[in-house]
């Protein structure tokens, strides 16, 4: 029967694809802490505008490792989780550098808003480590409640095949 040669090939293909990137992983190092002091608030107020507050260029380093090959494609999605985030205050992130690695990397040069529903941060292929991320806060004004406002930022690694 001719199908005896096709079915094993399909089975092999299934196994090969289902075991792709067995050790692929994503890790973030660092955190984002924004201190909005009185002087900044006064400047924002005197400017009669709600100014963005931009943090350090590499507050957080993102790494994607363990991909099966330099052509193994992936994407990273980012979302905001938990915390009592003030109304009107928005959190943004951008990729301020390329990191290192043989893999390709694209997207996220401009600031992207981090929402609870999640959004695409960047696309890549293969391993890429030390991708610097920079954060921006908008909606800060005298009307932002005094005190500490915290939110979790979650990153998800999703493979998209070769």
């Amino acid at each position: 029967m001719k199908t005896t040669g096709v079915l094993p090939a399909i089975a092999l293909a299934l196994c090969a694809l289902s075991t792709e990137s067995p050790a692929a992983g994503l890790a973030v190092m660092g955190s984002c802490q924004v201190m909005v002091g009185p002087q900044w608030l006064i400047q924002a107020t005197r400017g009669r505008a709600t100014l963005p507050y931009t943090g350090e260029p590499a507050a957080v380093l993102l790494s994607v490792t363990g991909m099966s090959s330099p052509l193994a494609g992936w994407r990273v999605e980012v979302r905001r989780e938990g915390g009592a985030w003030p109304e009107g205050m928005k959190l943004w992130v951008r990729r301020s550098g390329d990191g290192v690695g043989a893999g390709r990397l694209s997207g996220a040069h401009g600031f992207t808003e981090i929402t609870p529903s999640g959004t695409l941060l960047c696309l890549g292929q293969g391993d890429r480590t030390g991708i610097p991320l920079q954060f921006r806060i908008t909606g800060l004004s005298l009307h932002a409640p005094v005190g500490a406002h915290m939110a979790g930022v979650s990153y998800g690694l999703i493979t998209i095949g070769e």
Partner: protein
Amino acid sequence: MPHLMCRRKRHEEGPQGPIITWRDSEPRTKGMSLIMRTLLFTAVLAVLLTPAVFAQLDSDSHIVTVTVDALDAVDVSDAQVDLVIAINLGTGAGQATDSSSTLNWATNGAARRITVQTDRGTINYPLYVLASGVSGSATPGVGGSRGTAGGEVQLSTTAQSLVTGIAYADGNCSLTYRATATVAVAPGTESHNVTYTLTTP
């Protein structure tokens, strides 16, 4: 079935030696039945749609902390104001005014007021200040208010309200100083250190 297409080498003997030519064979799939093709297509489709190809492999997270400091700021534009009083011979009294100063304030707190006072205890020439033309910005949704100016205040060492009802706002107003004197008081000079304070009621 490692290859669907293959090439076959053919040896022939010519006048000047062996001739080697290559000829493509016919595709082996020619004989594949419709059922097998359907099966193959279905299998490939299943592979493409399986979660293993499009799955979240790993995730990580960190915390973002935004700390907003308390702000209660007030400042006056002019460091020094000079008033020279000329006595009216007809009335035996006189006054001088100056409206060159501006008062600015900003707060991210609720229920604030601005008070004014002088450090001078003994005053021969009464000094007054009037706040007027309050402007600025405040967000109404959170009960913001840029404040309301009261009437003219005669300065003393006791703090008195000048602008009240300030909340989550920045504002400014004009200040008008007025000093008075009469012939009953000897000529001279009085200096005041006038202090404005943004405080809670």
